[in-house]
């Protein structure tokens, strides 16, 4: 039985148990078993029985997906001749891989080696059995659960509370998945980074001023040891993000103020969605806009002024990225400003303040948490942005604060490190994890600083 069939059958079973539970609750109250009035609406008894049927089945299925490949492989290995067994333990599962490949490619018949052929067939057979077994197990679990659940349908059973609790647990589970995934990612990045720091001293990485991760293939080649100084990358990231924010914060904030306090309803109805479309444009599109339109323009403008501008420059990338970030700031700030109660505006205007005084002295302070939130979101996007930088700012790791030169950023280097064929434990590949860890730490610090800003403001005023 394929997994789809199992799931379909399960769903059908759940529906069946829902109706059964519902009906039984109605019947039980008629018979007067355990009270003459249902504690909950009949539907809740249906949900309860469905839960009783569904949860065991799901647990069985989950356990199976977690352990089935291990069990099947170890059984296959156990079926191998002694010599091969020893080999499969020592040789990093090479034999097992071969068996699996053989089985999956479906060309068992053509393979010459009879032991391998036998093993592959054995493996396939085991897998088939495991599929059958799980179908039976899951359905049996569901039916047993359903029967147990049905036994609990009595008028005085608090089915509504049971369902409520199940919902709470489900939500908790969803939250936990998000958190656990984050923790998992952080841990894996952390461990890979530690491996990298075994190969390259952490001080070289943090304080080195040259980034050239090209390790040689042979030890006697020139430049055999790559340089992993991350300073130019982080400097490039900071430079481009600073330019982008210098564009996005004033523009975004001003548009937000205009939208929330000056624009007519018509204007607002048109402008706000249009601004938000900016957020929907794919970054590649921004990227080639930056590379093909803005960068040449800056270069020409620079030449007219007698400046030496690289054809790929931090300025071009930063400007375009700034445009991209406007909606993040304008949208969130607009919401925050509009959420300030009208009474605050009236109070200020009623004291003889002008509109802009009201905005500066009352609205912006009151909306500060929302505004800071928007800027923070924009900053994280700027730091994480890759596409625009690759296309408009180049790949050369210059250590400079001159926005007219080409620079590169952390994310761009991560991409270049990991694209193409790579050995997975060379320092070059592992460096990507260290860079990722660095980015993560920076964004974290940014968040903490922003929280502090908001909290200080709150302490003062609320």
């Amino acid at each position: 039985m394929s997994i789809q069939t199992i799931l379909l059958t399960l769903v059908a079973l759940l529906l069946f148990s829902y109706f059964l539970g519902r009906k039984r609750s109605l019947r039980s109250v008629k018979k007067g078993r355990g009270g003459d009035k249902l504690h909950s609406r009949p539907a809740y008894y249906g949900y309860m029985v469905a839960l009783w049927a569904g949860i065991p089945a799901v647990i069985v299925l989950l356990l199976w997906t977690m352990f089935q490949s291990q069990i099947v492989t170890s059984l296959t290995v156990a079926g191998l001749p002694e010599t091969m067994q020893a080999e499969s333990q020592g040789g990093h599962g090479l034999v097992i891989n071969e068996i699996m490949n053989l089985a999956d490619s479906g060309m068992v018949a053509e393979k010459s080696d009879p032991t391998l052929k036998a093993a592959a067939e054995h493996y396939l057979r085991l897998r088939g059995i495991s599929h059958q077994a799980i179908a039976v197990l899951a359905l049996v679990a569901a039916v047993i659960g359903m029967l147990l659940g049905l036994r609990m349908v009595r008028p005085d059973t608090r089915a509504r509370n049971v369902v409520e609790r199940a919902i709470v647990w489900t939500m908790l589970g969803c939250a936990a998945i998000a958190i656990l995934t984050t923790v998992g990612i952080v841990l894996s990045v952390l461990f890979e980074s530690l491996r990298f720091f075994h190969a390259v001293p952490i001080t070289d990485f943090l304080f080195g001023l040259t980034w050239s991760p090209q390790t040689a293939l042979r030890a006697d080649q020139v430049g055999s040891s790559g340089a992993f100084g991350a300073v130019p990358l982080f400097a490039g990231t900071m430079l481009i993000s600073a330019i982008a924010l210098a564009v996005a914060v004033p523009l975004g904030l001003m548009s937000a103020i205009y939208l929330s306090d000056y624009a007519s309803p018509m204007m607002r109805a048109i402008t706000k969605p249009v601004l938000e479309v900016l957020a929907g444009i794919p970054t590649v599109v921004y990227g080639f806009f930056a590379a093909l339109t803005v960068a040449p323009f800056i270069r020409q403008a620079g030449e007219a002024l007698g400046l030496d501008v690289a054809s790929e420059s931090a300025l071009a990338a930063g400007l375009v990225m700034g445009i991209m970030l406007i909606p993040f700031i304008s949208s969130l700030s607009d919401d925050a400003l509009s959420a300030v109660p009208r009474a605050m505006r009236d109070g200020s205007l009623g004291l003889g303040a002008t509109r802009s005084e009201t905005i500066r002295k009352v609205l912006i302070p009151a909306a500060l948490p929302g505004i800071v939130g928007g800027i923070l979101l924009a900053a994280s996007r700027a730091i994480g942005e890759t596409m625009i930088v690759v296309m408009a700012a180049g790949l050369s790791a210059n250590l400079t604060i001159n926005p007219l030169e080409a620079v590169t950023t952390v994310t761009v280097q991560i991409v270049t490190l990991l694209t193409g064929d790579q050995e997975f434990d060379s320092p070059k590949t592992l460096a990507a994890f260290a860079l990722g860890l660095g980015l993560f730490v920076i964004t974290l610090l940014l968040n903490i600083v922003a929280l502090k800003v908001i909290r200080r403001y709150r302490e003062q005023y609320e």
Partner: protein
Amino acid sequence: MTDVLPTMPGLPTGETVVDDTPPMTETREEFDVEIKGTVGAPFVDDPKMSARHSNVFYGEKQAIFDVSLDIGRNEIIAMIGPSGCGKSTFLRTLNRMNDTIPICRVEGEHCLDGEDIYAPDQDPVLLRARVGMVFQKPNPFPKSIYDNVAYGPRLHGLARTRAELDEIVEKSLVRAGLFNEVKDDLHKPGTGLSGGQQQRLCIARAIAVDPEVILMDEPTSALDPIATATIEELMDELKSRYTIAVVTHSMQQAARVSQRTAYFHMGKLVEVNPTNQVFTTPQHQLTENYITGRFG
């Protein structure tokens, strides 16, 4: 609404007084539930503020119909009437707060000390410093008590030094009867005060810019009786320096604090008379219905 009014039992019917004479007449209109101009005494000698033929529109909808009313110097005038009759709207025309509502349009003549406040050369922002406003719900800014009171003086540059500002703040808080309660916490947030204290803070904030008129829109409707009594006492003290117009839903409050009372009904000004007269011998049938609790 007029045609669903119950006929008053025990009162003669049939006679309708058509009031074409100026609104100063003493005619007692008992039976005419249609509003034909204002009865009573809407005008005073040497008014602080005056409105003539005031019409206010929200888009297509007219909210105030041809209201003419004077507000005397150093008096408290109470504005009463059923909900939605336009009291707040009329009050806001007096300091041009209606300008902040895009769809709102004001017609007629409105004067402060004889100057038309809607004249093109008038600056509504400066006007609002002269005609202050206290709102229904206390709305202190999320700033410290000190900064709340200092807000207006700072805007208008009323204090040159910090000491002067301190003095203005203290004086305003004293006049609003709040100083003793908050003198040690001037730098605590104004939003942390109780409702009654917050409303007195808002009054102090309005006083701090030294206005000539204070408009109060249901200043005590969010407060308990004790806080209300404090504010009413305060209004009585304030009237020696300021002219006050107060909108209220509490007839007891109107009776306690005001010298004159104006009764609004569906956007029209029905009756204006000395307060004791309005509450003892109302001149207009609608006023009587309202104060005897027949509707509204």
